[in-house]
């Protein structure tokens, strides 16, 4: 069994210093890896990133993170990522990594992702330059997620996880106003996940959403935004090793 701990949207600042550390220190008892699904800070400043860094530094499980929109607000996401990397986290944007703990090889492909909406109710690459760039930016994020999941196929992983901040499916947004779904996620992420295959998809961003969802290709999706899960993290147990990943080419299989 492979044990995946995950949380997003912890929105830390100086006033929340040390708040999650006691729970994170229990992680070796319950999980093989901790995934952080973005919005780790409130404004994306290096000072706030240092608060997050102290929560995760020296943990006995590997930490893999993506950034969220809040982590971009101060226009220095590279500095935020560098602070987290110095604390030992692997911060992904269009990349993949393999972590091992207890012998299992856990592949994680990560991107922040972006919005655009879901099939039949989404933005198109049309019209004003800023509208086209909006959709292209989202498409680029999804393309890198697909490529990094494909890359993990060659790395003898027991499981492959897609880690994003924005949601790949509308299921996990239930509870949010439908009018803002296009700002909460994009079907392009789900299409990337279903094309490359994955054993689990984890995201944050939608504080008022729900935890459980699934792509049309059959990949389970979990919204781990802290307001949704109501704990310091949630743990998901995955069977080991069903090497034929759910969802691979699933969109076309029918």
């Amino acid at each position, binding site marked *: 069994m492979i*044990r995946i701990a995950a949380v997003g*949207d*912890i*929105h*830390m*600042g100086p*006033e*929340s210093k040390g*708040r*999650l550390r*006691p*729970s994170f220190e*229990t992680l070796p008892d*319950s999980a093989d890896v901790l995934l952080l699904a973005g919005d780790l800070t*409130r*404004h994306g400043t290096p000072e706030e990133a240092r608060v997050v860094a102290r929560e995760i530094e020296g943990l006995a499980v590997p930490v893999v993170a993506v950034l969220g929109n*809040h982590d971009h*607000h101060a226009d220095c996401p590279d500095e935020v990522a560098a602070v987290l990397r110095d604390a030992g986290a692997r911060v992904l944007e269009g990349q993949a990594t393999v972590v091992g703990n207890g012998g299992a090889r856990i592949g994680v492909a990560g991107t922040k992702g972006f919005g655009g909406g879901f099939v039949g109710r989404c933005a198109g690459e049309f019209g004003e330059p800023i509208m086209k760039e909006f959709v292209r930016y989202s498409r680029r994020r999804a393309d890198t997620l697909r490529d990094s999941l494909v890359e993990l196929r060659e790395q003898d992983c027991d499981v492959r996880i897609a880690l994003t901040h924005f949601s790949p499916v509308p299921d996990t947004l239930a509870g949010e106003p439908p009018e803002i779904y296009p700002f909460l996620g994009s079907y392009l992420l789900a299409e990337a996940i279903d094309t490359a295959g994955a054993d*689990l998809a984890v995201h944050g961003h939608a*504080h*008022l959403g729900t935890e459980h969802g699934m792509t049309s290709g059959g990949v*389970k999706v979990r919204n781990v935004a*802290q*307001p949704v*899960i*109501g*704990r*310091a*993290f*949630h*743990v*998901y*147990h*995955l*069977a080991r090793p069903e090497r034929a990943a759910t969802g691979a080419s699933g969109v076309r299989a029918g």
Partner: protein
Amino acid sequence: MSAYAARPAPGAGGAQNLDYRVAHLADHLAAGDLGELGVRIEIRGEAVLLTGTVPSAQCRDDVLRMARDELPETPVHCDIVVADASAPDHAEEVE
């Protein structure tokens, strides 16, 4: 002066309507020092209700203070909760 010109135009003074002020409060919560996008502000009758989950008690207090400052003549009810930072007591078996 014609009778038409004497009438106030539709919407005149409407910028002070509660719905616009609530929209501006939401903008200020997000773009200001708080960076808070996780609070929902709903008009309930003559009052406003704040709901959502925030990372700290200080954040909850800051949001409530800002809402009362920006809507001084409107009762503001607060149902904001602080995120639970405890470790989970069970795991999910993902089939």
